[in-house]
């Protein structure tokens, strides 16, 4: 099975590097360009070969630690159920004056910028990473109970739920952002509620949540999932889908990323932040 595109030395080198040591931003862009220029080329051209070669190594098998096994099963079931259900439910517009989700006024926003300066530097440092093919949430079909109802149930529960209002940034998508995020550490569930966050074109870009955990290095926030804001207006409630356990959330941040949540560019677009009060 010949693949003429692999005769392109540079393309082949980049594909090999992708599967063995990863690519930086510049190389990723170059790979994308080369693939776009060659209709026969595929980003996954060597993925199967690399995996097969890895499987051919005598790797001593080790059983999963029991506690990890339990977490995987629990989170897996939740993820699978939610991935096949609605991802976002639209609600009627809020009545003026209701809710607790308005973004703080300018002074507190400025305060956030000052307080979060070091954190944003950490975000910038962390930026170039990210996986190649993180898939997606998407569209919406009403579910029973709705995410809005689940969110309310969470707030009404006895759990000590974290609830923090979103603050906007200077990003154009975030000018009118409001709403809040609620998170229950005990059940590792949470919901984001948005108003005024710009509608995105899922074919061009998607929003992605990152959760900064005080017990982890700020450079490596937890991936909270990818989501869309549909064009119909009103409030949108999105479930949080944390990839790993969040022990002590310190900050929730929403960014604009490539479709599927892949981050390969220098588009440092943070569109909403919600900082959890210390203590």
């Amino acid at each position, binding site marked *: 099975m010949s693949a003429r595109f692999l005769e392109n030395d540079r393309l*082949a080198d980049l594909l090999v590097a992708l599967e063995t*040591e990863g690519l930086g931003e510049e190389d990723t862009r170059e790979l994308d360009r080369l693939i776009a220029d060659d209709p026969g080329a595929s980003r996954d*051209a060597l993925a199967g070969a690399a995996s097969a070669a890895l499987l051919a*190594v005598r790797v001593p098998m080790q*059983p999963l630690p029991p506690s*990890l*096994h339990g977490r995987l099963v629990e989170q897996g079931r939740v993820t699978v159920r939610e991935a096949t259900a609605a991802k976002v439910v639209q609600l009627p517009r809020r009545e003026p004056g209701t809710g607790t989700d308005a973004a703080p006024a300018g002074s507190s926003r400025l305060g956030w910028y000052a307080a979060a300066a070091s954190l944003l530097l950490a975000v910038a440092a962390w930026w170039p990473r990210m996986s190649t093919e993180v898939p997606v949430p998407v569209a919406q079909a009403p579910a029973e109970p709705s995410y809005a109802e689940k969110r309310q149930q969470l707030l009404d529960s006895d759990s000590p739920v974290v609830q923090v209002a979103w603050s906007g940034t200077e990003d154009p998508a975030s000018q009118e952002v409001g709403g809040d995020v609620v998170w229950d550490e005990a059940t590792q569930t949470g919901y984001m509620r948005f108003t005024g966050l710009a509608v995105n074109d899922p074919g061009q870009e998607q929003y992605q949540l990152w959760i900064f955990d005080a017990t982890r290095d700020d450079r490596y926030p937890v991936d909270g999932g990818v989501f869309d804001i549909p064009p119909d207006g009103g409030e949108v409630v999105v479930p949080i889908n944390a990839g790993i356990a969040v022990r002590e959330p310190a900050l929730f941040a929403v960014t604009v990323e490539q479709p599927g949540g892949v981050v390969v560019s220098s588009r440092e677009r943070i569109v909403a932040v919600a900082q959890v009060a210390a203590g």
Partner: protein
Amino acid sequence: MSESLMTRIARGDDSAVAACIEQYGSLVWAIARRLLRNQSDAEDAVQEIFTDVWRSAHRFDPSAGTEKVFVTTIARRRLIDRIRRVANRVQTESADVLDELGFHTPDTAADVSVEAELAARVLQTLRPEQRKVIELGLLHGLSHSEIAEATNMPLGTVKTFMRRGLIQVREKLGVSVGETEQ
């Protein structure tokens, strides 16, 4: 033919989750433990990997390979990402340590997967130093530069060995698919 685990997961059958973890959990854990330094990092990585598996299940194409290769590809790429961003790469190891593992023979690899068997057939034909380059890159998580340093090979040679080896494995897998289809 029974429905694949990925197909079941993609259509929301959460009973397939536990079966998938039973099937591939030890493999993913073993790879993560090889590539990451400490248990806590490996546990976080495995959670990320399986989250990707659940979300990506709908993209599994049985004509392109087995589920084991599908899961291994997700694991491998996630771990590469993690190593790059955490700077947690296993430090360049001595040649003594690097001799620990080695490859299956085609016979023993057949117990792992059909792709592993085919890859083992290719790898068996390679020179030992070329096999070592592939092993160091894929299972020890070393960058090409680190492999060059660990083996005292020129960087260009390392890249050439890696590239030729993977392309040969790819061709072997492609031929196999063609033969199967006839």
